[in-house]
């Protein structure tokens, strides 16, 4: 019993899945709350139409929050946006998770009408768990880059948080299915899918979208009923399917198909598409993910290397190289210090010490040479943590401004590090 408990919750296991899960959590919260800030005046400022969720909050909290002057509301919106962005990029992850969650609670207490749905309440449950530990910033985060730990992706942590998130999603399915056939649920005696499809869109209140097969299903109520029973059956079985290793991948696929179908057919909040599928991925054993990463590393190690030529006597550059190593999940990059390399032209015929002194270079597996900004831009295709930067790197105008900014950094690189006794002597 003690062993089982240990295996379920206390065992140290890689935290990489949880670190990745942080990103969909941030996106879901952002998609749900940030749009309500655009008409801030209409949704939150004095004179806005407000509905208070008295079952969720205590009266004291509600009356305290309702006293907020407009200036405080605007400050809280700004704080939330900053904390949300920090959480998304994984900077001071746990602190930003706590501040962001408190912000989400504040706006929920201020006006539940603006964003309150059942799925919002579910999202808050997940957010609470994300606040409990700092593991969410172990990888895919600015925190891990700043820590410069090249083995950060393999870090192990107590598994309880991931297990609780697994249990949350599995039992959410279970209870959702159970409610549909017991309590006041009517999925056995009635035909809810058929009724939802029939709801006219008058007043723009119909929850069903006009999807491709809507008319077909509307013409086949028997099929809708069978489909309803099938959904209920799968929902109730989900905990068993997900926790049983033999059926796990099938359950994950089923969950993905289910949520994609919901998104295509119903007006359901973002959580159903962004959060739940990502939460299903938490069932993939993190050790398997590490094995997959190891396999990729082995493949890349035997392939022609991607060489990054940098200045090893510049503290800023060496520090940046350590950060790149922390980001280099698949071990794609090999770093070469031009100051100590005996023959740079052996790496590439066009490379000299003078050139390497001016800027960083990257030689890709095909022997192509990239310098400065373009070397960094090439790296964004190689390091998963830099993938989001690809869009920025190819944004119109970046090709012109990027090299100017890069060459300014490169010229002043000896001034950027905190403690380096040999700074000025090398300038």
């Amino acid at each position, binding site marked *: 019993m003690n062993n089982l*408990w*240990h295996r379920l*919750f*206390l065992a140290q296991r890689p935290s990489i899945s949880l670190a990745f899960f942080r990103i969909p959590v941030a996106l879901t919260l952002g*998609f749900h709350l940030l*749009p309500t800030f*655009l*008409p801030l005046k209409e949704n939150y400022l004095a*004179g806005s*139409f*407000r*509905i208070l969720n008295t*079952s*969720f*909050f*205590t009266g004291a909290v509600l009356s305290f929050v309702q006293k907020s002057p407009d200036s405080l509301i605007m400050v809280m919106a700004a704080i939330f946006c900053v904390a949300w962005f920090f959480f998304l990029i994984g900077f001071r992850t746990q602190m930003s998770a706590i501040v962001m969650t408190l912000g989400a*609670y504040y706006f929920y207490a201020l006006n539940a*009408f*603006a964003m309150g*749905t*059942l*799925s919002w*309440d*579910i999202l*808050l*449950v997940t957010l*609470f*768990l994300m606040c*409990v530990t700092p593991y969410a910033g172990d990888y895919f985060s600015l925190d891990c880059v700043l820590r410069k730990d090249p083995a950060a992706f393999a870090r192990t942590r*107590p598994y309880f948080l991931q297990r*609780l998130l697994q249990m949350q999603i599995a*039992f959410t399915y279970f*209870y*959702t299915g159970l*409610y*549909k056939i*017991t*309590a*006041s649920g*009517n*999925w056995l005696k*009635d035909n*809810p899918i*058929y*009724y*939802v499809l*029939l*709801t*006219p869109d*008058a*007043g*723009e*209140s*119909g*929850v069903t979208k006009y999807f491709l097969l809507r008319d077909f299903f509307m013409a086949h*109520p028997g099929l809708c009923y069978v489909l309803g029973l099938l959904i209920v059956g799968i929902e109730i079985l989900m905990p068993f399917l997900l926790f049983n290793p033999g059926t796990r991948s099938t359950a994950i696929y089923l969950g993905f198909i289910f949520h994609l179908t919901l998104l295509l057919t119903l*007006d359901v*909040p*973002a959580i159903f*598409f962004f959060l739940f599928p990502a939460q299903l991925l938490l069932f993939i054993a993190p050790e398997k993910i590490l094995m997959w990463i190891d396999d990729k590393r082995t493949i890349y190690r035997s392939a022609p290397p991607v060489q990054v030529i940098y200045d090893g006597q510049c503290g800023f550059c060496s520090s940046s190289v350590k950060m790149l190593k922390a980001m280099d999940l698949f071990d794609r990059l090999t770093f070469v210090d031009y100051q100590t390399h005996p023959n740079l032209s052996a790496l590439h015929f066009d490379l000299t010490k003078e050139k390497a002194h001016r800027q960083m270079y990257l030689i890709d597996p095909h022997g192509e040479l990239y310098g400065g900004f373009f070397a960094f831009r090439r790296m964004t295709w190689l390091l998963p943590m830099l993938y989001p930067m690809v869009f920025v790197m190819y944004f119109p105008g970046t090709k012109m401004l990027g090299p100017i900014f890069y060459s300014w950094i490169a010229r002043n690189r000896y001034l950027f590090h905190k403690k380096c006794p040999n700074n000025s002597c090398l300038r």
Partner: protein
Amino acid sequence: MKNSRDIFISIFVVIWLLFFHYESTRVFYLQPLLKRTLPKIKFLFPPAGWIMFFNVDDRGGHVEIYGLRHGATQLINPHEIIRTRFIGFDMVHRNVLSQVLAPEVRPDFCRVLEKQFPEFEKFIVTVVEYPSLTRSRFEQYQAPVYQCPL
């Protein structure tokens, strides 16, 4: 249990699971079983468990709001009343306007309508009901619920 961290985690896990399953079963299973109202855990969990689409019946309904000017009525597009645009879904389609029928929010809602649509002299908040979607899909009854100013 090797250390205090394991004990702390174990206590947290047990409490969390108790809370989770209590809130999942409280309204529809525990309360009928114990025949009394049980307290809700504040600040977490949905009001009545995981009840997404658990009861969808043959009837339907929504709220329509009309503006009156010079004796003529005009249906106000609900998207002009709720102007928040979400990514991937639409609160109006989730029938969020039905919340304005609650008596305690009516004065506030009237005030907002008057401010947002100054071109109208009066507003009528109506409810549209479909008695049976399966028997007569487009048969609907509309009734005024309240007027603004109240």
